[in-house]
């Protein structure tokens, strides 16, 4: 197996030269294999948001290297960075981040419009992905007119339409009710298993984490523990996570 994400000796320190320093990430190392569904768990203040910001190219590490699909993202600037975001990574966020003044269809099509793809091909790809995520019936609606679960599916469709190397999720079920959350996680599992899409999820919710194959626990800026699901069923894995969270956090 090849790795799609390689994080090597990543350190992140906040605070300017003469200010008091806060170390958010001390020395983080891990890899995500192609086609893996991986979760990163940690309490607030653990450094998980900093890590996700670095992976999603919103922030840069103070030192260390992050490779995604072969690109050293710490060295990307300007248009190269924009193009990397457009082609290599897809995001889904807790608060959906859909553009409110575009219809669901326009939201999903936007990344392809940026690539100057032909309208015909865009239409075909939007139809395909919306069928896969069961949102064909709401394509003409505005985000304000659909439910939270539907919004998150639309966001996932937008994130996946460019066939990114990896899908990054930041508490994607955080704003959803439990049944919508479960539906979304099942969809993600499907995408991972059938379409071999690599997924990295940052969450503090054990239920969401239980859908992953592997979980990294982060505390005080370092990855302290790793948990693999192996052949466990989801419920047993869930209980294992709960126990681990308890012992890890204390």
């Amino acid at each position: 197996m090849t790795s799609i994400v390689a994080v090597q000796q990543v350190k992140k320190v906040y605070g300017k030269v003469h200010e008091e320093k806060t170390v958010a990430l001390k020395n983080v190392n891990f890899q995500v294999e192609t086609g893996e569904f991986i979760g990163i768990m940690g309490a607030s203040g653990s450094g998980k948001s900093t890590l996700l910001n670095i992976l999603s190219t919103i922030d840069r590490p103070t030192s260390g290297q992050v490779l995604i699909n072969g690109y050293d993202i710490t060295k990307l600037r300007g248009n190269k960075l924009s193009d990397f975001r457009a082609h290599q990574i897809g995001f889904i966020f807790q608060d959906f981040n859909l553009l409110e003044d575009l219809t669901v269809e326009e939201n999903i099509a936007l990344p392809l419009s940026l690539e100057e793809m032909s309208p015909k091909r865009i239409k075909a790809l939007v139809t395909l992905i919306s069928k896969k995520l069961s949102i064909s019936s709401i394509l003409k609606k505005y985000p304000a007119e659909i439910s939270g679960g539907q919004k998150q599916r639309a966001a996932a469709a937008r994130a996946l339409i460019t066939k990114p190397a990896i899908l990054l999720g930041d508490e994607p079920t955080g704003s959803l009710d439990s049944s919508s959350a479960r539906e979304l996680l099942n969809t993600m599992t499907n995408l991972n298993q059938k379409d071999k899409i690599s997924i990295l999820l940052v969450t503090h919710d054990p239920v969401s984490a239980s859908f992953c194959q592997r979980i990294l626990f982060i505390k005080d800026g370092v990855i302290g523990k790793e948990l693999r699901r192996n052949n466990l069923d989801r419920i047993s894995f869930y209980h294992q996570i709960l126990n681990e969270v308890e012992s890890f956090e204390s």
Partner: protein
Amino acid sequence: MVKKMTLKLALSGLKNHLKDYFILFSGLTISAAIFYMFQTLAANPLFLKSNTYLSSIVVIFNLGTFLLAIITFAYLNYANNFLISLRSRIYAMYLMLGAKSRKIAQLIFLETIVIGFLAILTGIVCGIILTQLISRLLIKQLDLSLIHYSPWNNQAILVTLIFFLFIFVFFALKNARKLVYTPILKLLNQEKTPVRAHKNPLLWGGEIIAGIVLLAIGYWALAHLDKLNVNGIFMAIITIVSGSYFVFDSLFLAIIQSLQHRPNFALKRLHSFTLGQLNFRLRDLTKLLAMISIMFALALGAITVGIGFHRDIATITNVCSDYDFILHDPSTRELDQVNNLKLTDTSVYHYKIASNKVYWLVDDFNLKPFNHVIPNGSFNPIKYSHVTGKQMLKDKNQWLSILQSYLGDTSTILPGGFLSKKEFETKTGKEHIINLYVLKNFMAEKNQIKPLVLADNKKIKLDVNRDSTQKYNMFFVINGMLSGFEFMGLFLGIAFLAMLASCLMFKILSGANNDMHRYQILKQIGARHQLLEYSIAQEIGTIFLLPALLGVVHVLFGLQMFKVTNLIYEPYKNLIIPIGIFLVLYAFYYLVTDFIYQKKVLRK
């Protein structure tokens, strides 16, 4: 203690968003400065009466003040909303932390008043300085003659102070009330969620037609103002205002939505996003944009009319006299000066005054025929060209009295007659010469002939205001009459433009905080920085362009009004100049808005 704390909080509020407050403050200052500058004209009846021939000029300026007051109020309303958009979140936080709403109301009241008061004072100072600069510039550039005009005007200061204080107290009360009565949640989350507007296609089509028909009626009324009089003006105001509103509410929206439904356009780059933004914005801005198109037309119209009056000065002078200047018994020194000018025509006529009667040498007129026009208040005066002495003899009395008018103060002399060379030589009495000149380019050389004409006017005790024999004196009189109008037209035009463009600017910038989030999302999707800049330039450009387009159409039809009422000669001539000047200034506002907005929403 509590009061001290409140004051501290209010002032710290100013400190935090320094850049935004700078934009707001400079906007308020400019509006106060413009208002003051207009008041230096309007609150100065002495100036108004001495500069125009219309007795109703004071009324016209009062009307101007009224219009300016309305747009200032609308403008300050947008500026105030911008202020609220800066502050509401922070005040909601104070409320959440348990601050009493009465205290918060005091705070926002205080803040509005502090900003307002500082802006008024700075505005008046800027107004005085600008008035000084602009009046000097205009007087120099346009040969304006402004009498009784001074940059410092106590009454103007008083009127500006009272008007703005009144408005700021009003807004301070309104803001305080708003913060107390709006639910905290709404204050915290002011982001407007766009909701689809359901429009019945039939009604929509009807609205488009109604808009166009109303505009057509308004334009028709302006083109028939000579018959409709005041009723025509009322009719035009009502139909054009409502027509503009309908056009914005329906036609422009229809164009944008039809673009949204064309995949070949909408699915290119960020077009779908830009169109989506415009679709919601236009609906939000319908009223503002309709108002701006009207203000745009008024401002552009005022500048066009101002320039029209300027052109009229030359046109009227041209048709009203054939000779550029006249010298009576010129000295050798004066003749030397004349020789340095570029002349196209010189006529020399001799006359003698004997026993209080004037006798002309008729041979002079046969040698060099005489040209004469009789101004009759229109652009088609009665013209006599190449009148020879022989012709004059046929209608002796008429021509003697016409020639008499070329001699200045004639209270002690009477018309005598025409004499042949022989008779003239034997006639006793003092011989005089009158030299009539035509310059190659009057406007270019008018300053050089000024001392000659003034000395000659004095010599013959000429009442300049009643003289129509020489172009220089005509120019002096007509320039005096029309300068006031020209100044007012240019001034009002530029002032209105500054205000209406700032209204748009504040409205767009007020939304910037909400839009920032959308541009962050686009960045995360992978939109390149240049593409975002381009999309913003397109979006703001459209918002600026649409009212400008409609405004130019209003002006093109509106100028008919001056044509049919004969107020301006050839109102459409060189129209490209005022439109050009205006659009350059307007484009400047657009670029500034675009720049500030990009700085705000694309912050790294």
